């Protein structure tokens, strides 16, 4: 059989040059995504485009603060993505809570719940800064050092423990069930 490892440099080049982004604005930074994707900054030059289906996407942009309610969806969406997948965190909020450091409804250290590859400073980061982050993640993909998805697999227990601590055990089932009675009542 063919040794696919021989093709790994080619694959890495293709992965680097064709990052599809999950269309999920998780916070304020989402407002800088349209300029990035459209004519002015045009990320499609690097083969990037937003993709509505998480099954096809490679790159997850956490655009700013994350609330627990959103984080549940982020985790599910992240797990839907096929490997290899990468996460880029925008601005201060995912790193340390940002201006919401004392808010009861904003995540403080995102890395405890899902693995993040690259962090960008700024509130919110300029499109140029985001592009700089994307350049960084592209370099890392080419070197093979963007290994967040591997970390997630290896330390799944740890991540799951943190997630369960925050949301309570069995949150996936509970969240899916939450709305059903209301649909039934009337």
């Amino acid at each position, binding site marked *: 059989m063919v040794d696919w490892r021989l093709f790994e440099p080619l694959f890495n080049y293709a992965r680097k040059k064709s990052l599809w982004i999950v269309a999920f604005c998780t916070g304020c930074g989402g407002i800088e995504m349209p300029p990035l994707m459209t004519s002015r900054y045009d990320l499609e030059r690097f083969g990037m485009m937003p993709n509505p289906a998480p099954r096809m996407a490679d790159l997850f942009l956490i655009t700013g603060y994350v609330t627990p309610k959103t984080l549940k969806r982020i985790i599910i969406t992240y797990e839907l993505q096929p490997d290899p997948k990468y996460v880029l965190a925008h601005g201060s909020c995912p790193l340390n809570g940002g201006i919401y450091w004392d808010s009861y409804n904003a995540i403080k250290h995102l890395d405890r719940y899902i693995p993040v590859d690259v962090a960008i400073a700024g509130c919110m980061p300029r499109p140029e800064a985001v592009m700089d982050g994307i350049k960084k993640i592209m370099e890392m993909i080419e070197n093979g050092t963007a290994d967040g998805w591997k970390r997630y697999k290896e330390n799944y227990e740890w991540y799951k423990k943190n997630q369960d601590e925050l949301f309570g055990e069995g949150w996936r089932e509970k969240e899916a*069930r939450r709305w059903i009675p209301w649909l039934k009542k009337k």
Partner: protein
Amino acid sequence: MVSQSELVKEARENGMELLPLDKDTYELFFGPQHMATENFSIILKMDGHRVVKAIANPGFLHRGFEKLAEFRPWYTNIALLLRICVPEPDVPEAIYSMAVDELMGWEVPERAQWIRTVVLEMARVSSYLFWTMGLGFKLGVYTAGQWAAAYRERLMALFEELTGARVYHIYTIPGGVRRDIPSDKWLRQLKDTVEYIKDKLKDFDNVLFENYITHRRMEGIGVMDKKFALDEGVTGPNLRATGVAADVRKLDPYLFYPELDFEIPVLKEGDALARALVRRFELEQDLYILEQLLEMGPPSGAYKVQDPRLKALPRFKVPAGEAYAHVEATMGDFGAYVVSDGGSKPYRVQIRGPSIAHGIRVLEQLLVGARIADVPVILMSLGNCPPDIDR
């Protein structure tokens, strides 16, 4: 994840009342990971392609602003509260500042008022362009969307020059503005930009607002009538599209608006198309207002209130009382209710986002009977902005 069929099965076993069995309906979770909803979720009960029932599920962007504002000094709340409305962050800044001005009994200098008016109008233009982009993307005319986003960048550059930031300007503060106009060059650039966007409006008309298919897609869906809109507290362009001539800039004039000459568009249909066309006309009017303001020129004087209390900013105190200020944002009537107990922090700040009226109950009622393809269009035509529901 458990599948929906399993949940339905379980609900049946637990004796829950189920959906009417004669109709084959299913639930669709529309958002938050969806291109049309940004960060908002609607749970739809579907019968084929038709929506039978819709339930809005907000809260994905809730950070507890109103609580956090009670723990930060009066001044720094500006840096916090503007995050409530991301497409036009100047509006929360302006209403909060106006409310605090009223509490302090300050007479804001003319120059500051002029700058505030310009900033608010620029924010309106940029927000409408952003909305045009959204409408284009949701309808499938990506061309119009791409152009709108690109032309909006010109305004972003001007904002950057004036305020020092692209999106979160943190510019309007109680008692005036933070910086003066950088130079006359900036005013000339603003004039050029206004002319440029005015010129490009024809292109948007061609490809989006006068397009045959756009009209076919938007007419007759999401229809509101006048009484319904007033009962539901709908404001702004959505209300004007139902035939009510209401605009905060005319009814409760603030800043420089009494001196400006502009028309407000009113249509009677109350459908998505009417709402879109009202917004389209307002974009033109806002550019016209900016032109008038530029012709007027900035009044001379200070750009900030001269008050000794401003020296010790962190311990700056506001006399007890309450004030309500509201402005006309692109989404509707944006208001701030500020209560002070005389301390160095606000006692209570409530921001009234316009989307809380038209983004929950109105949306739920308008969606009933709509096709699944109309859901993003109705959502966009209402100008729903999730962060100001969630706060």
